[in-house]
C-alpha cells in the first residue's frame, strides 16, 4: 500500500485524481485531501503520505509557500498546475515531476511510478524550493538512469544534439540527457545560451572569438556556426 495526499483548491481535480488513482492502482490509499495551505498544514503531518500531489495555486497562497511552512518534507512530491509558465520552467530546471490539468491518466501513472522508485532528499528539496521562490536558475538538474546531476550553468560549455538525446558538455564531464536539444534550448535560451548550429548550443559567457565558421570557447574548442545564423550570432555576441 502507498499513501497519497491531494492538495488542490479545485474539488473537481481532487475527485478526478481520486477516481483515476483508484482505477490505476489497487494499492493506493488517499490519506489526505485539502484545498488550502491552512487545511493542508493541519492534516499532512498526521496523514504521513508517501506521495503528495500538490497544486501550485491554492485558495490562500502558493504550493511552494505551503512546503516552506511544513516542518518535515518526508514525502515525494508531484506538482499539479493548470497554467503557470514560470512554475513549469522551474520544474523542468529541477527535473521535478509535474502534472497539467486536465489530468492525463498515463502521465499520472508515470509520475506515481517514478515517485515510488525514487528516494526523497529533504535538503535538496528545500534548496530547490528556495531557488524557485527566488526565481534563481543558477543550476540545472539532469536525471540520468543511474544518477542525478546538479550542474551549475556557468560550468556548461556547450550542448550537442545526439539524436533524440542531448549531450551536456561541462568543463569536467559530459552528460547524456534523455531530453533533446530543443528541450534544453527552451530552458537555457534566457540564461545566455545561443543555438549556433542545428546540433550545437553554446554558453555565450564562455565565447572568446569567432573564427571563420566557428565559435572559439575559452578552452580553445571550436564549435561550428551554420552560415544562416552567422549574422544573428554576431549581433547577439555584440550585445555585451
Amino acid at each position, binding site marked *: 500500500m502507498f499513501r497519497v495526499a491531494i492538495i488542490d483548491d*479545485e*474539488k*473537481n*481535480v481532487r*475527485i*478526478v485524481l481520486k*477516481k483515476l488513482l483508484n482505477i490505476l492502482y489497487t494499492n493506493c490509499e488517499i490519506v489526505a485531501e485539502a484545498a488550502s495551505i491552512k487545511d493542508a498544514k493541519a492534516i499532512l503531518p498526521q496523514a504521513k503520505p508517501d506521495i503528495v500531489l500538490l497544486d501550485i*495555486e491554492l*485558495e*490562500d*497562497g502558493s504550493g511552494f509557500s505551503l512546503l516552506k511552512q511544513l516542518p518535515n518534507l518526508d514525502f515525494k512530491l508531484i506538482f499539479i498546475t*493548470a*497554467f503557470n509558465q514560470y512554475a513549469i520552467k522551474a520544474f523542468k530546471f529541477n527535473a521535478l515531476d509535474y502534472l*497539467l*490539468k*486536465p*489530468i492525463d491518466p498515463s502521465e499520472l501513472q508515470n509520475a506515481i511510478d517514478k515517485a515510488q522508485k525514487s528516494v526523497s532528499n529533504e535538503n535538496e528539496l528545500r534548496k530547490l524550493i528556495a531557488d524557485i521562490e527566488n526565481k534563481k536558475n543558477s543550476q540545472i538538474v539532469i536525471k540520468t538512469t543511474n544518477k542525478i546531476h546538479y550542474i551549475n550553468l556557468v560550468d556548461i560549455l556547450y550542448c550537442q544534439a545526439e539524436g533524440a538525446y542531448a549531450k551536456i558538455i561541462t568543463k569536467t564531464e559530459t552528460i547524456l540527457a534523455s531530453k533533446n536539444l530543443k528541450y534544453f534550448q527552451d530552458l537555457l535560451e534566457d540564461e545566455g545560451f545561443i543555438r549556433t548550429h542545428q546540433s550545437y548550443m553554446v554558453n555565450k559567457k564562455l565565447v572568446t572569438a569567432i573564427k571563420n565558421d566557428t565559435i572559439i570557447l575559452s578552452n580553445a574548442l571550436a564549435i561550428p556556426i551554420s552560415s544562416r545564423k552567422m549574422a544573428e550570432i554576431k549581433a547577439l555576441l555584440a550585445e555585451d
Partner: protein
Amino acid sequence: MKQINYIGLLIILFCFTYCKNSTPENIQSDEDFIAFLNDETLIKSIKRIDSIAKLNTYSNHKTGLLYFEKGQILGHLEKDIEAIASFKKALVAFEKESNKKYIAKTNMLLGDSEAFLSNNEKALQHIEKALSIFKDIEDKKGEAKALNSLGHIAFQYENYKKSIAYVKKAAEIQLQIDEKEELSASYNNIGYILEQSGDLINASEYYQKAIDLNKNINRLNSSPLRNLGYVFFMQNQFKKCDSLYLKALKIEEEAGRLSIQKEIYGVLLESAIKNKSFDAATLYITKRDSINERLVTSENKEKIKLIEDQYNLITKEKELIQAKKNNTKNKLIFTILAGTLLFLGLFLIQKHRNSKLKLEQEKLVLEQKVLRTQMNPHFIFNALTAIQKTIFDNDPIKSTSYLSRFAKLIRQNFEFVNKKEILLSEDLDALKNYIETQQLRFSNKFDYAINIHDGIDPTFVKIPPMLLQPFVENAIEHGLKPKTEKGTLEINITNNSNVFCFKIIDDGIGINNQESKTNREHAIDIFKKRLSLRKLGEEKQFSMTSNKVKTGTIVTFYLNLS
C-alpha cells in the same frame, strides 16, 4: 483628381496654341517678319535677332531676311565689319533661294559698307553686281541707286567724269520713273561734282535745276541753294550769294537745323565783310552768336539728355540686377519657407500616422489582453477538469453538453474580441455560458440572476463585447469561491434614455478579504482603457464598492449607448 488633370491639359493646350501663334514661321509678309525681328533699340534688336536665330530654323528667305536686317542695323550702328559678315550670310541664303531682288539689295548694302570702310574695290564689285541684277529684273529705282553709288565711288577716286556720267545716268532713270526727290538730289550731286572739277558754270546750272525742282515739289532742302550761293560767293557776286543763303536760311529756320543756320550765318557774315556792309555784318555776328549759343545749349541739352539716358540706363540696369537679386533672394526665402512647410506637413502627417498606428497597436494589444483576461488559461484548464470530472459520473449526455457549452464559450470569445460592438443579447448569452461553466466547476456553489429593465430590448442595444465578464469572473473566483456557504451573483441592467447602468453584485467574502489583488487591478485597468478609447468619459463613472447591506462587492459602471 480628374478635374485637375483636365485643367492641366487645358493649360498645356493653351500654352501650345499660344506658343504656336507667336511662332515667327507663321508670320507671312516680309514687313511683319522684320517688325517681329525688331525691338525697342538697335542693340536690343540685334540681341533679339541672335536669340531668334539660335532658337529657330527658318526657310532660306527668312534666314536671309534675318541676316539682312541684322546687317542693316549693324550698319546703322557703324559696325560695318560685322554688318558685312551678316550681309554675306544673308546673301548665301538669298542665293539659295535665287531671290534676285534681295541678292541685288544685299549687294548694294555690302557695297555701301565696304565703301564706308574705304574698300572701294570691293564696294565697286558689289555695286556693279547689284546694278547688273537691277537691270536684269528691270528695277529702275534700284538701278538709279546703284548708279548713284557708283558715281559716289568714282568721285572718291576723283574720277569726276566717270562720276558725273554715273549720276547723270541715274538722274535720267529718275526722270523716267518720275522720282523727283531723288532726281533733285542727283542734280545737286552733279552740281557738286562739277563744282569740284572746276566747272562752275555747269555746276550752277545743275544747282539751279535742283532748286527749281525742290520748289516745284515743295521739298525743304537748302543744299542746292547753299551750294549755288557759295559758287556766287567765290565769284564775289555777294548779292546773289546773300539772296540764296537767306532763302536757305528760311528753309533751315523752318526745319530747325541750327548747325546749318550757323554755317549760313558764317557765310553771310563773310560775304557782308567782303561787301563792306558792316551793319549787316554786326547783325550776322549777333545772329550767329545767338544761334551758336542756342546750338551749344541744345548740344548741351542733348549731351545732358544722353548722360541722363545713360544714367537712367545704368540705374535701370542696377534696379534690374537688384530686382533679380531680390528675386533670387525671394526665391530662396520662398524655397526655404516652402521647404519648411513641406517638412512640417510631412512631419505632422507622419506624426498623425504614427499616433494612429500607435492607437491601432494599442487597440490590438488591448484586444489581446481582453482575450487573455476572458480566456484566462487558469479558468480554461480548470473548467476542462470540471468536465473531465463529469465523465466519471457516467452520464455521457450531461458530459457532452458541458463540453459543447464550453466549446461555444471559447468560440464566442474568439468571435467577439475583434468586434467593436455586439448585441447586448449576444453578450449576455456568452456571459450565461461563462457563469454556468463556472457553476459546474464549483458544483452550484452559487446562484445567479440577470435582471434587465423592462424598457431595454437586448436584441437591439449594442455594447462593446465582454465588458461585464471580468467583474463576473472576479465575483466568482475571488468573492464566491472562497465563501463557505452558498452565494448569489446578480447582474442588473437599467437605463435612463441612452445611459445604461450595469451592476454586478455578489455576496462573496468582499474585496477587503481577497487574497490577490493584482489580477483584479489588471482587469480593471484594461476595462478602463477600453472605455477611454470610446472617448465618452465613461471610464470615470466606474466604481467598485463593498456591499453595505451584506458582505460582498458591488461593481457599477455606465455606458452611453445610442
